[in-house]
Structure formats: C-alpha cells, structure tokens
C-alpha cells in the first residue's frame, strides 16, 4: 500500500540562506494520526507548508498518495485540508460564505449538507450568518477548521491546533480528530504540547533543528524509552539507605519516608522481586506503593537535549 504522505530527501533553504529542513525523510500511512513534535523553530510549519504547496521546497520529493506535489498538484492539494498556525483575520464575510468559498476553491461542487455538518460538529451552526471578524479568537479557529474540512479532505494538517485555546475548544477539536479517524482520514498535527500527542496520536515524530530525530509508534516509544518508578512509602523514616541495598538504584525522599526505585522496562527482569526480598531481610516495612511511568514529555526533553 502506498503511504499517504511520503517525503524523501526534503531540504529547505529560505531566501536568507537559513536551512529550515535538513534531508527529511518521513512516511505517514493512510488513516494514521501522526503527531509531529518539536520545539519552536524546529521546522514543523515549514514541513507542513511545503506539503500543502504554500512554501516551495529546495530539493527532495514529496508524494501524496503516490502523486507528486509539484507535477500533480491538483490531485494532491484537493485531498489536503490545512488549519494554519497563524490566525489570519478573516474579513466581513459570514461564516457560511467563507466555508462555501473554501469548498469551491478546492474544486468541489456546492455541498450545503457537508458545510452544515461541519459547522454543527464545531458548534458553529448558530454563528453561520455572523461575519467572521465579529467572532472571538477561539471561534475564528473553529472557522478555520470548518474551512479546512469544507471540501472533505482525506488528509488534514493541524498546525499547533491547541496553542492558546480554551479547554472546551480543545475538547471539541479532539472530538473532530477522533471522528475523522473513524472516517478513515489521515491527520497530521504539529505541537509542542506533548499532552496532545500523547492523547491523540498513533505515531509520533520528533523534529529538532530541521531534522527528524525519530519516528515511532507512540506506545512503543513510551515503552522503549520510558522509565518506570516504584515508590514505596515506608512505615518508619529512614536516615540512610542500608548498605545491603546499594546494588539497587534507590533514592530516599520525603524526609526519609519514601524510597523510590527506578527501573528500565526494557530489561529482562525489573529487579522488583529481588528488591522486595532485600527490603524484608533489612527489616524495612512499607504501608503503600505506587508505580509511575515517564510521560512523552520526559522522553521528548531527553531526546532534544541529547546532543
């Protein structure tokens, strides 16, 4: 099966000479929700804008469902919807008219049902006759999403969809993404909020300084790179870790009440059983325990700071 998006050897030098993308290779499968993670200035928007046709790549090849974005731009662009990062201030047009404009622009015959469906799913229906400029920032972003969906794209790009939006909108947006996934659409979102990737994505790519550092299935990524911690709440406070436990990576915290054991899920054995035995031998008792797993956030910070 051909990948929905296939990028190979993509470079971008901006006019000033700045290289925003360095030899990017990336494949995104049909029906996938892909999160592109990276700090500000990493090149996320540049990458998206090249695929959408807003920025010209300097070298390399981009295919959308097997079609070249330059040679076959009519095919590729008509399949893509984009919700941009910046909020361009739309004019005096009403919500309905601007959505109708978007749909026509992307070559679709009039489709009032589709526009109505989209507006309703974004809680915009009662605003359909309101001029865009009278809407609040959050509402404007909803309109941008509606515009991007008006032509029923197979691929949706969301560039920093929840940067600075309220909880309600974020929830609506996640619902929209979930609905799109159910319809079989491919969704690519960029974010520097790990939480978003963690919640939504099937696969995560990390980009830094214009380079894709890794792409990985989200659960596998968290599993492979994730560290787990076991926290034991001791019955009595401890002044120091007994010498018999020095083989374990332990930390004493909470004024000697908590003993934290870090272990790697990749290891054959976690060492927990051995630890518990040694604790008993040392006469230490605990009245509670909990485990926690490092979040994508920790993994991400780790990765970006590695070099």
């Amino acid at each position, binding site marked *: 099966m051909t990948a929905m998006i296939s990028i190979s050897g993509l470079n971008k030098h*901006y*006019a000033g000479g700045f290289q925003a993308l360095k030899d990017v290779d990336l494949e995104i499968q049909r029906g996938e929700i892909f999160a592109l993670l990276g700090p500000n200035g990493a090149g996320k928007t540049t990458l998206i804008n090249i695929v*959408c*046709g*807003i*920025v*010209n790549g300097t070298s390399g090849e981009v295919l959308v469902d097997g079609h070249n974005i330059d040679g076959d*731009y*009519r*095919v*590729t*662009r*008509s399949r*893509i919807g*984009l919700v*941009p990062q*910046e909020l*361009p*201030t*739309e*004019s*005096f*047009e009403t919500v309905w*008219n601007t959505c*109708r*404009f*978007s*749909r*026509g*622009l*992307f*070559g*679709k*015959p009039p489709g009032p049902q589709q526009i109505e469906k989209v507006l309703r799913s974004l809680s915009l229906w009662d605003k359909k006759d309101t001029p865009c400029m009278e809407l609040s920032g959050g509402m404007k972003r909803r309109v941008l999403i509606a*515009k991007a969906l008006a032509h029923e794209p197979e691929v949706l790009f969301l560039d920093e969809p929840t940067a600075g939006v309220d909880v309600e909108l974020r929830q609506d947006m996640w619902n929209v993404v979930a609905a799109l996934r159910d319809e079989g659409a491919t969704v690519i979102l960029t974010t520097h909020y790990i939480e978003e990737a963690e919640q939504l994505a099937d696969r995560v790519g990390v980009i830094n300084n214009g380079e894709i550092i890794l792409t990985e299935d989200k659960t596998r990524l968290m599993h492979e790179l994730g560290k787990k911690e076991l926290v034991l709440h001791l019955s009595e406070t401890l002044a120091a870790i007994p010498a018999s436990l020095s083989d374990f990576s332990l930390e004493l915290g909470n004024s000697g009440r908590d003993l934290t054991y870090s272990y790697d899920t990749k290891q054959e054995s976690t060492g927990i059983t051995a630890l518990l035995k040694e604790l008993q031998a040392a006469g230490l008792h605990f009245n509670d325990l909990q485990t926690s797993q490092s979040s994508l956030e920790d993994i991400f910070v780790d990765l970006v700071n590695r070099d």
Partner: protein
Amino acid sequence: MNFHAIKAIYRYEMARMFRTAVQSIVAPVLSTSLYFVIFGSAIGSRITEIDGVSYGSFIVPGLIMLSIMTESISNSSFAIYFPKFTGTIFEVLSAPVSYGEVILGYVGAAATKSVIIGAIILATASLFVDIQIAHPFVMITFLLLTCISFCLFGFILGIWATGWEKLTIVPILIIMPLTFLGGTFYSISMLPPAWQTISLFNPVVYLISGFRWSFYENADVAVGLSLGITVGFLLACLLVVRWIFKTGYRLRS
C-alpha cells in the same frame, strides 16, 4: 479546469464589491460629475469645440478611461494585496488552482466592476451632454481591453507591494500623471509640437485616442495603432503575471 474555484473567487470578490457599493460605485460617479461641473461647464464654456465636438462631449471618453484605469488598478491591487496582508492568501496558495484560474477569478471580478463603473459613468455623462457612439463594438472592445489589462496591472502591483504606501504611491506617482497628460481634457494636436512628440511615449494617449475615436471618429493617433498598443500592454501584463506564478515571486517563499 477548476471551474468551481474560479466561480468561488469571482463570487467572493463580487460580494466584496456589493458590500462596499458606496465606495465602489458612488465615489467614481461623484468624481466624474465633479469633472463635468469643473471642466465641462466652467472651462468648457470658454473652449467651444474640439474637432467639431462640443467640449463637454469631447471629454466623456477620456473621463471614462480615467476612471476605469484608476478603478481597475485600485480594485485589483487591493483584492490581492489584502489577503496577502492578512494572511488569508494561504488558502489560495494551498488550493488546487492554476495561476490562470486565480487570475480569471480575481481579475475577472475586478474587470467586471470596472465595466460596470464605466457604464455608470457613461450613463451619468449622458445626463450632462450629448453623446454619440459611432462604433459601439470598437468602443466595447477598447473598454474591455483597458479594464482587463489595467486589472492585470493592478494585480501585479498588489503582489509586488510590500506595504500600503507602495500600493498607493504607484497610482498617484505614475498612473495619475499619465492619464492626465494622456489627452483626457484636450486633444494632443492642441499641444506645442515638442510636447506632441513627448506625448507619443505615453501609452495612455493611445488608449484614450482609440476610445474617443469609437465615439466621435476623431483621433490623435491611428485607431489600429491604439488597438495594437492596448493589446501589447495586455500581453506584457500577462507575461509578468505568468512569471510571478512560475517563480512564486512574493507569494511563495
């Protein structure tokens, strides 16, 4: 051909015009009426006739040209500059449209407005003076060619302009003098010989002369030449627009 896209742009632009109907239509009508009062009545009472045509009637074709040239440039440059300025242009850039379709939409709408304005001015003028149109088809041809080519020119200006000053300075600094010196209010033959020669380097002279010929059959230069220069200007603008879209000049980084 992405007809839906052409229609979408055209419709969107026409809606903008009707939203700003006062600016778009009333303003040129008012300014033309003022020209009539000032040039037609006040000055015209002292200049009786030019080439057998009363002065009031003589200036009508030039006035129409003057208005549609400035209106075409300002409408069309604004139409493309504004989305560039606000950022909404991203949508057009990411749409499955060829540059020809973008042009047809934007320039088509702007040219339609200009034609409407031209017709309104003609109607307004007929309230003040007697007008005959000897060659209606030639008249319409000149009208259309001028509207389309100046809308294209405005489109180029709108893409080139990186700020509001640039957008307004070109019409004021270049187009205004060319149109005022282009024989709107006088016949080139009324000028001293040296100025007559200099005038021949002004492309607007050819437009106005050809257009006036279609009304009263008198012209400063041969009609064929007028037509040739107008078509040449149109082609030049088309070439520049083509180049802009091929290279992405000031549209795609």
